[in-house]
């Protein structure tokens, strides 16, 4: 069966019950193909983070269906027992700030994920070094996070998100702290990696600098999404 990226159908999330009930996501539908990078855009309080948390298996959706790769992971209830393992093996995260582990060097920050999955240290470090090389940051492999520039830290964070070859990467405003040159470089990198590893990438952002680079954009407002074709501006 071919990989399907991530498919979200009729996803809803309700907080509270009765009079205090609040529907944060309303019948959200999305589809991101392998190798594709889509933007998720919306104002504050529109439901972006709630959607990201649902996709990241951090909170439980109230209803709907999610398919990751070729596996249905949620259909009214989680179909996966170990959500922690699901996050570790099937979902890559890239955050607004890199959030690298300050007491691990660059190589081990990336290698930690495969190690957590049970891969031996040597193999995990080899995998990590491959990705660091792909992201052109291998020369800082033995550096501590505090010794890296903001752009280097974000590249390491991307490497960490990709190291377990997850079918989907959730990037939460990955370019927010960067200037336009570095922001575009990060988006270019995400596009390259998505194509190279056939990973579906969802980039949550309201960074005007990078929005024109998406070929497809999902707008979210009051918990509802609608799809729009983006400019797909060339990244050079």
């Amino acid at each position: 069966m071919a990989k399907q990226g991530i498919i979200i159908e009729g996803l809803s999330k309700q907080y509270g019950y009765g009079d205090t009930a609040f529907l944060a996501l309303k019948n959200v539908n999305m589809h991101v193909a392998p190798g594709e990078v889509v933007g998720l855009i919306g104002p504050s309080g529109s439901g972006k983070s709630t959607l990201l948390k649902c996709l990241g298996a951090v909170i439980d959706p109230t209803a709907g269906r999610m398919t990751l790769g070729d596996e249905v992971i949620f259909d009214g209830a989680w179909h996966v027992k170990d959500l922690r393992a699901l996050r570790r093996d099937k979902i890559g995260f890239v955050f607004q700030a890199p959030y690298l582990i300050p007491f691990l060097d660059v190589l081990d920050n990336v290698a930690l994920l495969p190690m957590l999955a049970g891969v031996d240290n040597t193999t995990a470090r080899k995998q990590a070094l491959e990705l660091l090389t792909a992201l052109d940051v291998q020369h800082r492999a033995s550096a501590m996070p505090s010794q890296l520039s903001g752009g280097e830290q974000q590249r390491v964070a991307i490497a960490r998100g990709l190291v377990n070859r997850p079918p989907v990467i959730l990037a939460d405003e990955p370019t927010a702290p960067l200037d336009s040159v570095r922001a575009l470089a990060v988006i270019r990198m995400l596009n390259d990696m998505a194509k190279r590893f056939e990973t579906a990438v969802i980039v949550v952002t309201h960074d005007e600098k990078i929005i024109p680079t998406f070929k497809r954009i999902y707008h979210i407002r009051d918990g509802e999404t609608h799809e729009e074709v983006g400019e797909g501006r060339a990244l050079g």
Partner: protein
Amino acid sequence: MISLAGRDILHSWGKFIFTGIGLGLLIGVTLIMAGVYRGMVDDGRVLLDNSGADLWVVQKDTLGPYAESSSLPDDWWRSFASLPGVMGASNVTYLTMQVKKGERDVRAMVVGIAQDGPTAAGWPPQLVAGRHITRSHYEAVADVASGFVLGDELKIRRNFYKVVGLTRRMVSSGGDPMIFIPLKDAQEAQFLKDNDAILMQRRRTEENPIFNRPNVPGLLEAVIESQIVNHSVNAVLVRIKPGYSAEEIATSVRRWNRLTVYTRQQMEQILIGKLIATSARQIAMFLVILAVVSAAIVAFIIYTLTMDKIREIAVLKLIGTRNWTISWMILQQALVLGCLGFVVGKITATFAAPYFPKYVLLMPFDSVIGFFAVVVICILSSIVAIRMALKVDPAEAIGG
């Protein structure tokens, strides 16, 4: 899998080292407190061992001669010495006082020993320098802890004594060094009245027509002499011949009903169970307080270290780290801190113990118990931090 705790410790080693040293000093104090208690017990046992006695005969219904004052006539010993199974019996006096050497003085237990020779009970069993007392008056053998050296002249009451021998670990149950002097001198030192009291007593006697009879020459002088001289001792130390039961001989002595006799076991019970019982409870209270303070420090440090890593813990949880891995990381850090503190504490206690004025006996068993107590304290102290870490929501790593 790499050691997250190890990497974190290496990353912030300064914090761990300084906290470990602080905790170590506290653990060192705790070990020394335990050592002080052990030293007190050992002082008591050494006192009994060095006396060389199998039985202590003291004034009736007293816990003498160490725990209570005891006074009995100094001619009882002959009666005990003639009992079957008794190897020897010696009078002894004990008096804790300030002994003067020039301008300074030393707190010491002055022991009056009968002139029965070095093999008699009550005598110091061995000397580290000099010789035993050979003269009937004004010679002394002092424990090295008193600070006296051979040839020193010390003053007890109004008399001067020359130090002719030195001993080691001859101390009272309170840890005061012993100074041995001849029994007659010790009796005088313990029971001597001051000059004014003697003069008044003499005047009263002279004015008493019963004692001052001109037709009975020498009576007044004899009475006055009897009032000055004191024939009391604090105890009689009895040695038993091999093969005889101390308890049987003690029972035989007790039959006279005017004396109390203690065996070695009973005397040890008095010294350890009664004499130092309050001090032991006091030390136990200190140990409890120190344990609680140590636990609070470890808990606070580990909690603070964990608080500093909340975001990293959220990220670790989000990327799939098991709760056990995070808990183990925190627990390992607490244990490393505890072990570091214990090593620092043990070294501190070992090097500091000799400088304490009282004997501090650091027993390996106490160190083992201390180590396990530190481990338990660290485990308990890390619980708060672990609970907090487990409550961290991985969603905290995602904005919004």
